[in-house]
């Protein structure tokens, strides 16, 4: 399986998350979605525009959705938790500093059972940078991703897709550390960047696609392709640099 990193700078790359969520569900894959920043209904409404019904997917067991905002409230305001079922966000209460509970949740979600006939397995995370804001150490975050890769990519032959934020003049060293480390270990990087010249109506940003061929073979160079894009209500259009409809 592949590890794909979604990265954004000076813009919001979450349109990529919506795309991959719909894409993998339509392809018949089982998806474990760790949604750290937005509610289920937010993704559901956008997915509907992209032609996918998240509620139905959840019901059929095709989508396992961790609505982190809700889990956090359950952990802090809820009843005393059962000893056998720790919250995936266990680390928030400070009783532990690692993200083992979160990893266990992912592993249980994607481990196939006898009756499953999904075309593939995918772990999707939006967005990893939030874990740092919640008090997880960079090392704990990287460990979590490492375990996920071993389990999902290697053992289960599935894909892992993770979104992180970054910015060129960021002073968030912990985040930069995590992002750089993940870049080194990614098979594919999709990097959405806002235009340096500022906002433009016809071009919302630039997408750099980096195929990390150097990971597989030492002598290989990474392949870099650059496109520009414009986001619309129901899809995103890509075009070669300088060739947007407005220019032509």
């Amino acid at each position, binding site marked *: 399986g592949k590890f794909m990193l979604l990265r954004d700078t000076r813009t*919001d790359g*979450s*349109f990529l998350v*919506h795309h991959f969520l719909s894409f993998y569900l339509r392809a018949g894959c089982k998806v474990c979605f760790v949604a750290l*920043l*937005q*509610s289920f*209904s*937010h993704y559901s*409404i*956008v997915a509907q*525009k*992209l032609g996918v019904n998240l509620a139905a997917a959840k019901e059929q067991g095709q989508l396992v959705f961790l609505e982190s*905002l*809700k889990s*956090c*409230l359950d952990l*802090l*305001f809820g009843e005393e938790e059962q000893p056998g079922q720790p919250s995936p966000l266990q680390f*928030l*209460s*400070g*009783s532990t500093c690692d993200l083992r509970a979160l990893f266990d949740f992912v592993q249980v979600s994607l481990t196939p059972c006898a009756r499953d006939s999904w075309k593939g397995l995918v772990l999707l995370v939006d967005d990893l*940078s*939030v874990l*740092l*804001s*919640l*008090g997880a150490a960079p090392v704990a975050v990287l460990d979590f991703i490492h375990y996920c890769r071993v389990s999902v990519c290697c053992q289960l032959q599935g894909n892992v897709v993770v979104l992180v*934020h970054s*910015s060129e003049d*960021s*002073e*968030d*060293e*912990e*985040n930069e550390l995590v992002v750089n480390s993940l870049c080194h270990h990614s098979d594919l990087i999709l990097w959405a960047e806002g235009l340096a010249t*500022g*906002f433009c*109506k016809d071009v919302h940003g630039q997408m750099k696609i980096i195929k990390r061929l150097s990971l597989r073979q030492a002598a290989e160079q990474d392949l870099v392709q650059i496109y520009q894009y414009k*986001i*619309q*209500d*129901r*899809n*995103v259009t890509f075009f070669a640099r300088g060739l947007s409809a407005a220019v032509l």
Partner: protein
Amino acid sequence: MVPWRQEDKYGLYSNLLFKYFLAEGIVCGHDLFVASAKEHPDNILKELPAPLLDDTYGKELGDEAAAVKSEDFQDSMKIAWRYQNLPKMEASPTTSTKFGHYYDISKKMPPELCQSVKWHSFYLHEELSFEPKMKAWNMNSGYARLLQSIQRIISQEGFDGSDPQKKQRNVLRIGIQSLGSILWGDDVCCSDSPADPHSLTKFLYVLRGLLRKSLSACIITVPAHLIQNKAIMERVTNLSDMVVGLESFIGSERETNPLYKDYHGLVHVHQIPRLNSLICDVPDTKDLAFRLKRKLFTIETILIEGSNTKDVFHFNLAKEQMNIALLSN
């Protein structure tokens, strides 16, 4: 939705917008929740601006409108929080205005209007005298206490839809003043490496969860100029739906700059909401300035144009009334 404002250096203007938000809540009949560690919420509510009604406003603005040529108005200028059916400036706002109201900051809101809505207050120093049983939250106790208070109101008053008996669902407007300041027991404003750098961001995350599951909107003012740790500021921004910075000219070199002579400060839009949609409405211009007149606080765009004949820059002002009411979801 969680919009927050970076406080200008002396907190004057952000406090004003804070009060506008609450005043709009009263005029709309929303419930209010006001939290502060600085001033007692009772006093904050006494200082809200009075709503402007038809005739007086029309007269106020009539003079202004006449001075500006009609071609200066931009037809559908999109500011992040502006909605398309907002009336143009010439029309005087009436109670039939679809969205938002106008206020006279030289007058106080009448007490009977304040009392027409249900409001809840959280004044940190009064709250701390109680010691209810608290689960280990791993967070600054002032913040934890505030979250528990908000959650209790949301649940008890049915803002999370938990009470099916309630006929009419109302909106809860939450206003939190000067979050992050030392008065909340957080040293994030005093130190580059605070004792607990995650308290503020954890608070915002839990608050976000509470807002998402209820019919509520929250405005928070933050003394951003005091927070030295920029990493924390970046994280706070990422955890918020909307972020607006107010940069006042008081005490800065811009105060004497002739380009800005009609204004009191600049408005920086750092983040706009992108909820339930692939795209977001991005403004055509991000050059916004504000000014405080005797009765009105306005936000306007600044366009700097070069003249053809000489190298003289002059302003081409497009005046728009910003409606702070539009912060509710």
